[in-house]
């Protein structure tokens, strides 16, 4: 899989309240959640972004609450990928479970707002077309690769548990 998009850069410890505030958690509608994505932190972002754009963050992205509404909002807003130096664990599993691509690499520090990136998941390569550089990441462990390949946890469960019954 390949994605290409423009970067929106965020800092360290972006929490799930920043991504989607609790006042919007009285709905499960992904499109509605998307309209409030990152509203507290960057109110203009959702209006200005283009589908396929990439979020790049520092350390511990998605810390705080377990609300899956956070990766749902990011995915429904049209972001193709989140790259961060590190992810908080519940956010990471939620993203993988719902099929939102995430890449964990310390190279995220070098990426700047507005950079144009081309990401090749199979090769584990990020091409920074703006800075004319490239970064590699080690990829996911085999178990997570299997989950991702299935298209998320529920598809994996259906394949493994429900179809076999």
């Amino acid at each position, binding site marked *: 899989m390949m994605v290409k998009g423009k970067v929106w850069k965020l800092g360290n410890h972006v929490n799930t309240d920043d991504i989607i505030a609790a006042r919007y958690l009285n709905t*499960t509608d992904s499109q509605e959640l998307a309209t409030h994505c990152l509203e*507290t932190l960057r109110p203009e972002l959702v209006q200005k972004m283009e589908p396929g754009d990439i979020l790049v963050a520092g350390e511990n992205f998605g810390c705080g609450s*377990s609300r899956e509404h956070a990766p749902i909002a990011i995915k429904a807003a049209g972001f193709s990928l989140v790259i961060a130096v590190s992810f908080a664990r519940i956010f990471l599993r*939620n993203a993988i479970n719902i099929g939102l691509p995430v890449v964990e690499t310390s190279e995220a520090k070098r990426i700047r707002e507005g950079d144009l990136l081309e990401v090749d998941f199979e090769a584990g390569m990020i091409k920074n077309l703006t800075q004319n550089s490239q970064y590699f990441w080690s990829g996911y462990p085999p178990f997570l690769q299997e989950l991702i390949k299935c298209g998320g946890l529920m598809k994996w469960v259906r394949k493994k548990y429900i179809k076999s019954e």
Partner: protein
Amino acid sequence: MTITEKILAHHSHQEKVTPGEFIEASVDLVLANDVTGPLAIQEFEKIGATKVFNPAKIVLVPDHFTPCKDIRSAELVKKLRDFSRRYQVRFFEIGQVGIEHALLPELGLVQPGQLVIGADSHTCTYGALGAFATGVGSTDVAAAMITGRIWLRVPATFKFTYHGQRQRWVGGKDLILYTISRIGVDGARYQTMEFTGPVIDSLPIDDRFTMANMAIEAGAKNGIIAPDEITLTYLKSVITAFKMEPADLRSDLDSIYCQQIEIDVNQIEPQIAVPPLPSNSRSVRELTGTRIDQVVIGSCTNGRLSDLEKAAAVFLHGKVHPEVRTIIIPATQNVYYQAVKKGLIDTFLTAGCVISPPTCGPCLGGHMGVLAKGEVAVATTNRNFVGRMGHPESLVYLANPEVAAASAIKGRIAHPEEVVNP
């Protein structure tokens, strides 16, 4: 192996597990609430599931926006209620419901050695009883409701050893805030925080709940305390019979820890965490001038009976400042009832506090005490992120129940001894 590794090995039917290893483990209890449960049900139905793995091991606790704050939250709770009737899983109606992480232990639903997952980040609270308990997402819960299993990466364990004597006014909240300030909000990311040492050995169960509850605020997968006499005494008060499995719930002497720190508790004063991170903890004395508008005493962190007892003991020495509103939220119906019987509610009402029914409510800016622009709160809750309790330009300081009560009386951040021994 550590206590966490032993529980994970037992639940994945292996002799041994190693940090970093991926396992599929069986779960003893699956939890979701009114925010996360509806999404889980949606995913459950989307793949055409028609039965749950074991109705007795699934609990739905509508605690976040209840009693329902608006039509939409009422619809979410209805979804849980309908699902519970159809699949015979446990659902707690208003009148029985309480904040999930106070309610489930109180009902004896969590026991040492169990593996508990919950679509709520503070599920780690149950580590206080020697269970492996961790917060997951809604999709995880949907999958676990079908399969009775969860995928996990075995965490490495970070050992914390607490020595010395706790000063007066220093409780579990202060110990955990201080600890998080030492290691940062991602200081234990993906890891287990194992709390040990003489201070923990004598720490009351409610304070242990508070400590394990906030392990997530350091990024941890779980917090855990080996079960001992204090744990067993508590368990005997809530359940008639239980079996500890695996039986040996102590970390082996040759356990491998990724990190270890020793904490001298003698030095720790009552703490207060400055917004916007729980790791910004300082001694209360450094902030005693800060003016406040609201005080919230409650939550899954500090809404248990002993928390209310501590707060009430301070309110015996003064009334709520005229420019402050103080909201007391007993975490469960039982805590509320005990607080009535012990006269605590009398003390709170006389002091000018308002009593809320059990709810997460203001902790996450849901309802029952949301802040306006520029307002400042002292809360016994667990997060002080930007806009956590309301407007993005409002502020939350985290503290223990006595500090919160003293601050309510003074109208500014205050040390309890300013009120109790003036």
